[in-house]
């Protein structure tokens, strides 16, 4: 693993390395270099298995963090490639030519987060949400409760308790707050 990280460091601009375990590392690289880094890992370093493509919404920093997760079945090591893209007009280079299944992940991210992957097959079709016309629902500025109340006729009389307060009252009724 050390050797692989050193090799990557020579060829690509790596901004951050997080070591979780001996066989699991996360590296952060620039948006432009991501696809070539993944190609390099797949073709030269033996990371032939694509595990998942995920995204984290850092609304405070105004970025999406894409995570491409790869696995090397021979050496039994995993690597996560993180890259930051802007939340405004979020666009990323498509990687469907490396593994076919990435196209499905990209289609889902387009629908749930509004990240565009130009050129990816069927990326503009609706995937799970049919005919969605609001902002993408997994973005953190989307208020799902408000949307539900406006659209789905909530039934009257629903009560919710704060679990901490409720259990305190129930278990220690004598104790003052």
């Amino acid at each position: 693993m050390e050797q692989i990280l050193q090799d990557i460091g020579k060829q690509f601009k790596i901004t951050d390395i997080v070591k979780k375990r001996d066989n699991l590392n996360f590296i952060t690289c620039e948006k432009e270099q991501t696809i070539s880094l993944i190609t390099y890992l797949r073709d030269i370093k033996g990371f032939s298995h694509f595990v998942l493509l995920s995204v984290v919404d850092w609304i405070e920093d105004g970025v999406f963090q894409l995570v491409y997760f790869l696995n090397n079945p021979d050496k039994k090591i995993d690597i996560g490639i993180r890259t930051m893209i802007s939340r405004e007009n979020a666009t990323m280079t498509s990687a469907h030519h490396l593994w076919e299944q990435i196209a499905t992940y990209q289609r889902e991210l387009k629908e749930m987060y509004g990240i565009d992957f130009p050129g990816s097959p069927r990326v503009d079709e609706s995937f799970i949400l049919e005919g969605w016309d609001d902002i993408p629902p997994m973005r953190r500025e989307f208020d799902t409760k408000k949307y539900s109340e406006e659209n789905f006729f909530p039934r009257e009389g629903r009560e919710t308790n704060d679990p901490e307060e409720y259990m305190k009252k129930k278990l220690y009724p004598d104790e003052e707050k």
Partner: protein
Amino acid sequence: MAIEEQNKKNKFIDPDLEKREILSPDGEIIKIDPMKDYFCDAKPKVHEPANKVIEKFLNWSRANSLWVLAFGTGCGSIEIPSLMTSRFDANRFGVQMRPTPRQSSVFIISGYLAVKTLKRVIRSYEQMQEPRYVVALGSCTVNGGMYYDSYNTINRLDYYIPVDVYVAGCMPRPEAMLAGFNKLKERIKAGRAEGANEYAEKFDWYKANQKKIIKDWNMPDYNW
């Protein structure tokens, strides 16, 4: 560029609903428009019982042979296999599963309903023969349950299709479902399970509610 063109071409249209030319059995080529030719565009009607004595007998026989549409919509559909097999054996109560909407009279809504599923549910419900009954399982169909604030699951089922019996729980066990079926039988025998007529009476209201959340309505308005 080729892929972008392909994307445009692939825009999903239900192939069963497209206009097309087909070869008839006589060797003639005929044009069909499935949205007009395959579906009736008349609104549903309220069916009044012709004779109250006969209706009572009919209701008794309906109640004793409940044919359930095998359509699992949520997590509750996992209870149905155990309901039908040897331990709980719903066949004792005259309940059996049927594969198509045309053959069945009871629709079990087993749990939460996503908007995408609701579209299929409405389509299946409208294709069922009258009289038809709906059993709604779980708290999700009552008030949304644990998904009350979800952007994609409905809160109240009775705004979209009429419900005869609610079985509360999360999820209800097969015993509770059997109790629900017995309750449904009582209702049918008493002549109170008039969901299909209620649907016909308040048809515009139900349709408006359905169309409010199903935004790409790419099916016929009336599915019978």
